[in-house]
């Protein structure tokens, strides 16, 4: 269970490098909610605070006030344990994949869970096969297609079997075919999935949708109503 208790995230503006109190801006919050559903979507305009919310769950961003916990573990106090439980997939897999080849990147994830060296390569090959990437195991990561890279990024994260998966716009850079592949994969996972997305079809498949606008959750509820609320929110902004 993900719990956010009176969470705010603030930042300093960088005007002349000075940090007077009046230049503190609120990026998100105050926000209090419990996220128990297996499929949760977060939608909202660019720069609204969606990614900040996603990063709070993994401890990549720590709250300026309030607290975030996952299964009772506080992200500020137990960051390492939280990251063992919460996997995170980024929009751009190029930033996430750090080893020269696909099999080596999966093996790097397995290293964290303490798998003996002798077993890592074999297990990494098994995982790649499960994700349909067996034929790309020894291929340089930079030569994979965008869809293959995102699939590999998912394989690397899921290799450690996290309890929760947070995805920050995982399909934004993908074509329709790969988007479908990633969507189906996410839909079939046993884990709790919190997905930040601009894909309203994906949001409609969630059990619960949070609509974020200007750092605040302006709607929290069922997908149909949430998508309507989001469309209404955006309508005045896109008209000439």
């Amino acid at each position, binding site marked *: 269970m993900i719990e956010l208790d009176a969470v705010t995230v603030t930042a300093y503006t960088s005007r002349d490098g000075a940090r007077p109190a009046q230049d503190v801006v609120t990026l998100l919050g105050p926000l209090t909610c419990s996220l128990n559903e297996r499929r949760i979507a977060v939608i909202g305009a660019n720069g609204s605070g969606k990614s900040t919310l996603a990063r709070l769950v*993994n401890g*990549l961003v720590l709250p300026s006030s309030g607290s975030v916990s996952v299964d009772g573990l506080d992200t500020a106090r137990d*960051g*390492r344990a939280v*990251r*063992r439980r919460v*996997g*995170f997939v*980024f929009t*751009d897999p*190029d*930033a*996430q*994949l*750090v*080893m*020269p*080849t696909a*099999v*080596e990147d999966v*093996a*790097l*994830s397995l*290293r*964290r869970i303490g798998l003996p*060296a002798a077993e*890592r*390569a074999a297990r990494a090959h098994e995982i790649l096969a499960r994700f349909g990437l067996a034929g790309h195991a*020894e291929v*340089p*990561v*930079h*030569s994979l297609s965008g869809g293959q890279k995102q699939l590999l990024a998912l394989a*690397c*994260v899921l290799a*450690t079997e996290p309890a929760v998966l947070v995805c920050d716009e995982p399909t934004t850079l993908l074509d329709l075919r790969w988007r479908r592949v990633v969507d189906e994969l996410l839909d079939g996972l046993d884990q709790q999935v919190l997905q930040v997305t601009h894909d309203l079809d994906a949001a409609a498949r969630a059990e619960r949708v949070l609509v974020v606008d200007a750092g605040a959750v302006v709607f929290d509820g069922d997908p149909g109503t949430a998508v309507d609320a989001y469309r209404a929110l955006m309508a005045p902004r896109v008209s000439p």
Partner: protein
Amino acid sequence: MTRRAGPALRGPWAGPLGLYRPGATVLHRAGPGAKLGALAALGVLVVVLRGPWSAVALLVAVVVAAALGRLPLRSTARSTLPVLLTATLLGAYQWWARGWQVGAEVAVDLVTLVLAATVVTATTPADRMLDALGTAARPLRHVGLAPETVALAVGIMLRSIPALLATFAETRDAARARGLDRSPRALLVPAAVRTVARARATGDALAARGLAE
């Protein structure tokens, strides 16, 4: 009018380092520690042995090692080309400044070391390399550095070579598209900014994966 597709349409240059090529040769089976040790020993020999003929002898030995490791000739030659160019310029300067023997020695030594490092990375999976580097870096624990972190940094450095070159190529194409292909500022500034942004994103990704904690 259509313009002939240039190098930007090719895959990003992988560089001489950072790409493992699977195989079952004697070099692939050798332990990474032994290979890294041999590479270090070669570095010492290159400095200790003087004269162009000893430099050529070491280069021949490394070429034999590359053949033993079954490194593909064409891609290895292509990836070593920029190093050859650098070695030629460096050798020419040394020739002019200190004579042909020194010029030849410096140029050949540079190619020898880069080719030897290529042989090591091409025949050693990164996972095994990380284990070896982690073991080698154990003494650094005494100065507060985690060996796993040092090993991971080296692994990321190897992966970053083709990624940085791809960033550079994309930035060059963007400058060309805006008609700024002769402006170094339009190339270097965005490339530097994107490189820093990429480093930050990689740091975030490592933290998110719980690595180097």
